[in-house]
């Protein structure tokens, strides 16, 4: 839950990176820590096993001066993706303000991706939240692999609803699309504080005319970092 401190003029917002095991959540934070230059950044903390698998969470704090008169502190967390750490994922989701859901573009990971998305919704319910209230953005990661699932297939699987959310292609290991994804999520959170009313402030993009998206045809991979239309 966003915390506003009028005394120190600070707003603290929590963004959680969620997704299946090894989909690129930690890689996103590692890359952000290297890429970000102007925002004031803290140390990247990783609570991980010896095999570099996230055990509890990764944490990175970023301070920016985006809102007039306030310092905005974005607290970025990742959850452990392995199935056995479900309780830990529930704990990390406490007080979440925005979510970035990372999708692994490998074909053989689709079942894990779908299971993780369902798990996200279940764990939000445990925290008395839902994706209707919490702004979220999709990141289709690992777009550089040779047999990546087509983007419109991923859109059909994860974004097939009347109100679609923003989705970004990315290659987290190289940094492509990582900052764009975070900025989209950040803007959705910050939009709540704007006097200008906006239908998208809950994190949902413009509604589609049709309620469902037809099954995709194969299409060539588009450039990572670009928002999916």
């Amino acid at each position: 839950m966003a915390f506003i401190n009028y005394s120190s003029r600070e707003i603290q917002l929590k963004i959680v990176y969620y997704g299946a095991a090894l989909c690129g959540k930690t890689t996103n934070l590692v890359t952000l820590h290297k890429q970000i230059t102007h925002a004031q950044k803290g140390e990247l903390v990783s609570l991980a096993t010896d095999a570099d698998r996230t055990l509890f969470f990764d944490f990175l704090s970023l301070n920016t001066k985006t809102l007039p008169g306030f310092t905005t502190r974005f607290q970025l967390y990742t959850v452990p993706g392995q199935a056995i750490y479900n309780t830990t994922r529930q704990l990390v989701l406490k007080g979440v303000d925005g979510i970035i859901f990372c999708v692994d573009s490998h074909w053989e990971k689709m079942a894990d991706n779908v299971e993780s998305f369902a798990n996200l919704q279940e764990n939000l319910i445990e925290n008395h939240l839902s994706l209707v209230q919490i702004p979220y953005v999709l990141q289709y990661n690992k777009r550089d692999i040779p047999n990546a699932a087509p983007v419109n297939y991923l859109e059909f699987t994860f974004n097939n609803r009347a109100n679609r959310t923003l989705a970004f292609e990315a290659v987290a290991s190289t940094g492509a699309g990582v900052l764009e994804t975070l900025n989209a999520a950040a803007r959705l959170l910050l939009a709540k504080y704007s006097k200008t009313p906006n239908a998208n402030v809950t994190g949902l993009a413009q509604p589609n005319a049709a309620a469902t998206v037809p099954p995709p045809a194969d299409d060539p991979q588009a450039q990572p970092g670009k928002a999916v239309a």
Partner: protein
Amino acid sequence: MLTAEDQMAIEQKLAEFLTKSEAQWSALVDKGGNLFAQCGETGSLDLSILSALAAGSFAATHELAKRLGESEFSALYHEGHGQHILMSALHHECLLVTIFGEKTNIGLVRFYSQQVTVILNELLKLASEKEATSGPLLLDGDFLNDKAAIT
């Protein structure tokens, strides 16, 4: 949400607590990891990391407590060689995190923390009631379509 008056009132109580207990630093952290009031000296410690780790640690032990049939462990204490940390549960999803050294001892810190948590719970209750009746923070600007928030 915390007004300047709320923060001052809380920090005053934290200062009194530090004086009595001879602890080094104390802060209020919510269970999501946000630090919203603090008092004392921490040297070069990154407070946002400290808050996130404290909240995560407390949340993990809360789950352990549930597995043992307890509603919650009201306090969590970690003892080091020179520096120690005590985390005490407050109402309204908050923690009181206290760091202390060899100048004092856990008994004294725990004794005064139990006293100050009663007062802090009252202050948090008042702040929460105030938040329920106050309007949302709204600022000029179109942040959704603005330039990049983070560079």
